[in-house]
């Protein structure tokens, strides 16, 4: 007789079996009673199979350089594996090697084709440009290139206006 399936999240015998097809690939999830309960399988409003698939797609263990940590939030690959969540937006850059192999299993594609937060991006561009100009201004002053400095100063005023920042500074 076949031995009973084990729960994907712990080692108890699995009694709840789910099948999900993403991108023509069949994913099977087997859970024990208590993990099914904890994951909200019995609660129609709170259950995310995607969540379980995430766990399933973490096997085999993706390789990440030992000691790698997110500079902003301090997350390590183990933290991600434990929770299935990243710590901060910057984690996506830090752990890109960990993420890439999962995306294909998880989603329809690997690149965003939807909405773009235009105004937020515009603001970011203006801020980046402002930083750039300010450092150029400093180096122009240092090098006593006063004509350039005046030009940068004018441009700074203009960018500040565009970004909706006060021009006095």
């Amino acid at each position, binding site marked *: 007789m076949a031995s009973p399936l084990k729960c994907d999240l712990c080692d108890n015998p699995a009694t709840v079996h789910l*099948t*999900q*097809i*993403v*991108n023509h690939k069949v994913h099977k999830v087997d859970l024990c009673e208590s993990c099914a309960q904890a994951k*909200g399988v*019995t*609660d*129609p*409003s*709170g*259950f*995310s*199979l*995607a*969540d379980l*698939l*995430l766990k399933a797609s973490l096997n085999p263990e993706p390789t990440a350089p030992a000691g790698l940590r997110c500079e*902003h*939030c301090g*997350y390590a690959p183990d933290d991600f594996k434990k*929770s*299935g*969540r*990243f*710590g*901060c*937006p910057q984690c*996506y850059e830090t752990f890109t090697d960990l*993420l890439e192999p*999962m*995306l294909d299993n*998880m*989603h*329809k*594609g*690997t*690149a*965003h*084709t*939807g*909405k*773009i*937060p*235009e*105004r*937020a*991006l515009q*603001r*970011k561009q203006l801020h980046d440009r402002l930083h750039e100009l300010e450092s150029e201004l400093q180096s122009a002053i240092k090098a006593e290139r006063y004509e350039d400095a005046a030009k940068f100063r004018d441009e700074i005023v203009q960018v500040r206006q565009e970004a909706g920042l006060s021009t006095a500074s």
Partner: protein
Amino acid sequence: MPLDIDKLLSTPAELTDNSTAKCPVVLMTRIRLARNLSTHCFPGRADDGERKEIFNRCREAIMATSSMKRGMSVAVDELAPLQRQVLVERHLISRELSAAKSGAGAAINKDQSVSVMINEEDHLRIQVLRNGFQLKRTWTAINALDTALESSLDYAFSPRLGYVTACPTNLGTGMRASAMMHLPALVIAGQMEKVVRAVNQLGMVVRGLFGEGSDASGSMFQISNQTTLGESEPDIVKRLHNVLQSIVDHELNARAKLLETDPAKLPDKIGRAYGILKHGHVISSSEAMNLLSLVRLGVDLGYLPDEYRTVVDRLFIEAQPGHILHRADKPKLESDERDRLRADLLRSEFANFPTPGYPTAGNN
């Protein structure tokens, strides 16, 4: 403004006071967007101080939008457990948020069709819900609210990965679009498993309880998109719309077939459900769901006037445990007493229902 639950419950709401007879099979359409601020740790990682900061900033931005005019906002830790439960039962906050630690909360608009959760799994979970089958309108509304919020909040966004979310399963659009469907005939005809398999093949997820023979949730199923990256929002909405439409067709076919092959079966089930709701004295939460589901089917089949569908939909919400306790003004009750109070509520509501008129054979 602190949350006044009594006021909330007595104010006409999208889900309890609007009748939509156009497509009765779909009870409710809901879209949520996951959004995060670019500068902060995700809620699961942020400490108390950072969570409070996120909460205050987001709350201010949300309450300034036109969607929130005359709305209210609330911090979860200011709410009693029962109040949280009432909000969960009304789909306004998630179970996860109701259990959250400090710095979590929600903003809810006047007719409860918009709710923005703060510091749930993501900094923002924006939700718009509409009665009935209105995916495109729901998308238009939530898209506008999202754009308004973006004008004052710097979202975490990557040109390649889209909206950056705590869990990679929400990357890209961060959008989960769903519909709550009422599929009693497919359940009675034993076809749900087939439907679930077909819907999965199409990249959508079905949530609900569907064991053999047992139906503990009033034949309610939530269908939603599974993936969020690699497809635009309007494409997801369109695809989901088509899937939902085809399920609606299957449900209506199943109803017609049941009436044809066994003409007494549905009227008998519906009549019995009506009788228990009108005269029962002890009704559990799941029994109430099943009975109301059958009466709702009775409205769809023309046994009861259309306007009673709205009453049934309201009772689906008001017969839930938190609402029963809140009505009784008790934080806790033994379950048998709760079942008595639920039956009291249902009896008094059904006292106002007309007697169902069953069409004679060949007349439907």
